[in-house]
């Protein structure tokens, strides 16, 4: 397998505190990679850098052999919209838009017609078991239902890479497992790569491979020594 997405010598700091201190990582097409480590180890920062949300201070992020760090904000925005899907722990749905409108949003931005976008949105909502909630506002849904909508929105554009930052962090165990299983199924079917950030071994086990981080660098022991769990 050749690498679809690679990060080489990634360095990124917030003010004086470095979050990433020279880190290498690669993700193959269709591969599910878990990024683990204790809180504060830099795993979210790594996800943001790989997804082109944040620029690195040093090092390069290559996607399909292009250094996206050199791209403009607009170009990276477009890339995130077309090739990447992004999923956070919570709070990503627009509260005033219905579930279907939230999911349709990326398609509308890509220039789809309203009816067509709604059709795909409903389809994807159905795929994640929340098809009957298409016309509900996020506020009227449970956390699990909201997260299912968020997954549908992240996948509706059929991205090549899905970036998921603690996607089950706000869910109960069973709901979290269901959501993850659904993500894995879709990723396997469509050959989507997944970068899955989590601090839980149980969640990381959904990946093909685990990359452990400690203090902004790779941790070969995977144990997050000294920082506890």
């Amino acid at each position, binding site marked *: 397998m050749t690498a679809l997405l690679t990060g080489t010598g990634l360095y990124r700091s917030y003010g004086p505190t470095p979050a990433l201190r020279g880190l290498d990582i690669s993700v193959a097409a269709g591969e599910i990679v878990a990024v683990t480590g204790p809180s504060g180890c830099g795993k979210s920062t790594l996800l943001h850098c790989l997804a082109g*949300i944040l620029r690195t201070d040093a090092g390069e992020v290559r996607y399909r052999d292009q250094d996206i760090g050199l791209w403009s904000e607009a170009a990276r925005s*477009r890339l*995130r*919209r077309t090739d990447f899907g992004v999923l956070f*722990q919570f*709070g990503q749905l627009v*509260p*005033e838009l219905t579930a279907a409108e939230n999911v349709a949003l990326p398609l509308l*931005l890509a220039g789809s017609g309203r009816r067509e976008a709604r059709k795909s949105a409903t389809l994807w909502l159905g795929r994640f078991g929340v098809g009957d909630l298409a016309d509900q506002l996020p506020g009227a849904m449970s956390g699990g239902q909201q997260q299912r909508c968020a997954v549908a929105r*992240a996948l509706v554009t059929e991205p090549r890479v899905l970036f998921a930052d603690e996607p089950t962090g706000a869910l109960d165990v069973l709901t979290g497992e269901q959501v993850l299983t659904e993500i894995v199924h879709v990723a396997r079917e469509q050959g989507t790569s997944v970068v899955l950030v989590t601090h839980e071994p149980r969640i990381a086990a959904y990946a093909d491979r685990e990359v452990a981080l400690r203090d902004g660098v790779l941790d070969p022991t995977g144990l997050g020594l000294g920082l506890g769990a």
Partner: protein
Amino acid sequence: MKPATLVRLAAGGGRTDALRMAFTAASAVLAAVVLLAAATVGAVPELGDPGDGSAAWNTRYSSPLIAEPGLRPGVVMTLLLLAVPVLFLAGQSIRFGSPARDRRLAALRLAGATPGQAVLLAAAETATAALLGSLLGTGVFLALRVLLDHPEADGRRPLPTDVLPGIAAFVLVLLLVPVLAGLIGAFLLRRVIITPLGVVRRTRSRKPRLWPGVLILAGVFVPFVIRPLGEFLAHAGGSTGRDLSIAGAFVVVLLAVVGVVVGTGWISYTGGRLLHRFGRRPAVLLAGRHLMADPWNGSRTLSALLAALVIGAGVLGYRAYMVTQFAASDAADRLSADGGEGYGAENSFYLNSVDLVRVAVAVGVVVAAAGIMVALAEGIVTRRRTYAALVAAGVPRRVLGESLAWQTLTPLVPAVLVALTVGLSLVRGVAQEATAGGGGTCDGTEAQCADLTSPYWHLSPEVTLAVPVPLGQLAVLGGAALLVMLLVVGVGLIFLRRSTDLDELRIA
């Protein structure tokens, strides 16, 4: 709770809290300046009985508004009225970012604070900011006094920059502004129950009612039917009918004013529905849904803006009427044989007085716009996580900015047009033409004068001029309001830029 603890807890908070305190302080500055200005005009020394006419004028001032004792209370009133939009601004500022603040208060409740202490804390925070603001405002006022002190060649001043209000007035302002702010702060918490486990907010989630919309539509269309209706009634019922139609029109227009001011929620909601129904672009969809979901956000300040515009349009209409009236008098004077001077000389004075109100309206518009800006900024800051997540997902900031502009301007444009129309109708419902002259004198004996057609009668010709619609000035007023709102949107975009900084994703 010791006062020191109270202050430390009240002043401690995040960036949003700092912004709220800054906005609150800024509105306190405005309030202090306006109130002190009013006190200054009130403190201009009386030189005699106001009934003495020009003998009692304080000739140290070139502006008759300040010099004439009979006019000064009007100026003071105008200044005090200006405090009303400032109050709206203050209310909006105090509410800025309050959900986060209320959660902080809930955490304090969990740590053992009583409900009273929580409210006290919120009020203390507001009052502290307002006290700082009114101190600063006093400084600004004193600085303005010096800066604006330009005696003319004859030693007279245009403004009373040489008098100071009494110490009592200063103390009153310094106390009144923080106390009022604290009370507003506590009042705004009335819908919020802060429990140790979180905040229960009794929100206005109902959809806006229809009746303000009906009032607005009536206000817009009634002016078109006033005249035909009046003519019909005058034909049918004589002068009583005509008076009735004028009174009826006046009442309808007044109701429309109420509709505009109360109906901002309806305007926002309806605008949102139309955007959602007919919009194609994602930005329009976002804006439409936002307006539908929260039509009340900033509705009070929008009301203040519209009220200022209604008054402004009314003043413009009244000014047009006055100008026409003067023109009619002049024409009548010229036509009549005795050729008196009429009111011509004093015309500019009356127009100046009206213009002062115009300045007040302009200030009111700006202050109300500042309130809308605060409401807009608040909306952005509370939703920053969602915005940041959208940007992370590749939604261009441009789309978010566009939706912000749609969401602000959609209710505004029709509301401004309606407010201007209604304000103008208010005046035109009463006077559409100005008449001067007429009447006459008779220099014959009583018997000779009994016959109106006798040559002893010198009849002045009657001049009637139609009052023109001051379209140009209205356009300037409306345009200026829109321009100010565009500025507001611009500031909103800056907030948006800062709030979609992707570091926000780190704040859970």
